[in-house]
């Protein structure tokens, strides 16, 4: 994996952001490209009906048209992943707003549309089923998700360092090989 930074690519300060991103994209290795696809697939799973290639295409457009600047010190894949995250968040908020508007007058307050909640539950259940024979991976996912929910930083405290790293490798392999995505609803 190249882990490209902006400073690795930009020929000089005069070079446009578009050109810098374009040149960096052209140098991505096959491993980077597959990783980019997996990141898009994961992020697209947050929104039922959203396709990964549609999301990635939109993110590339934003990166290349200059509307999102590639900051110094941020790897290219992290930059693109950040754009995808922002795009999905925007669409989630938009759907929620539309659902709330549709319910005006019905005296019901919704935090999120019911289909989105059902989809989230189904995805969480699918992950639990996929790793049902690997409790270490499930513990790791739960601990990492807890951390992203604002919990403690101690990932999977019940696991030893060695088991945690082994679980992390198995999890990464399942995602990178596309096995997990094929299992999700």
């Amino acid at each position, binding site marked *: 994996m190249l882990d490209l930074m902006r400073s690795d690519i930009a020929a000089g300060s005069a070079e446009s952001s578009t050109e810098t991103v374009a040149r960096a994209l052209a140098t991505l290795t096959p491993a980077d490209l*597959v*990783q980019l696809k997996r990141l898009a697939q*994961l992020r697209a799973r947050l929104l039922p009906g959203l396709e990964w290639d549609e999301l990635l295409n939109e993110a590339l457009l934003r990166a290349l048209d200059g509307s999102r600047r590639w900051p110094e010190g941020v790897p290219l894949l992290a930059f693109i992943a950040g754009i995808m995250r922002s795009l999905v968040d925007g669409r989630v908020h938009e759907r929620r707003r539309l659902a709330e508007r549709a319910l005006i007058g019905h005296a019901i307050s919704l935090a*999120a549309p019911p289909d989105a909640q059902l989809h989230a539950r189904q995805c*969480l259940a699918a992950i639990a089923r996929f790793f049902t024979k690997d409790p270490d991976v499930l513990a790791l996912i739960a601990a990492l998700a807890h951390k992203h929910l604002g919990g403690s930083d101690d990932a999977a405290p019940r696991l030893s360092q060695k088991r945690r790293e082994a679980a992390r490798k198995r999890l*990464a392999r399942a995602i990178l090989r596309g096995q997990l995505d094929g299992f999700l609803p």
Partner: protein
Amino acid sequence: MTGIRDASDPIARWRATIDALEAVVRAAPDEPEIDMAEAKEVRRLITMRLAAVRPNNLPAAWVRRPGILPQIVPDTGARPETTETIDLTDRRGRAGSDLGSSAIPGRRI
């Protein structure tokens, strides 16, 4: 990450799970078995996007410059015999307008 999200909300938990899985993928070493078809698929998507951003990436010599009209040089070499004729005249007996000014009215090719 901004603030503590509601852990009981399935959407918040699913989003946090995706964030976690994304972090694992980004920190992972290269997978030794790369599916080249998938890599090509993403490469093609990037290439199409790059082509849209750079609509004119031909060498300067290949690009028609403004004010210079294209010259069509007649082919003087031997041509194969045509077996069919196409009538390009319209109802008024003139050649189709898309043939340009060099078209001969009523010409058959």
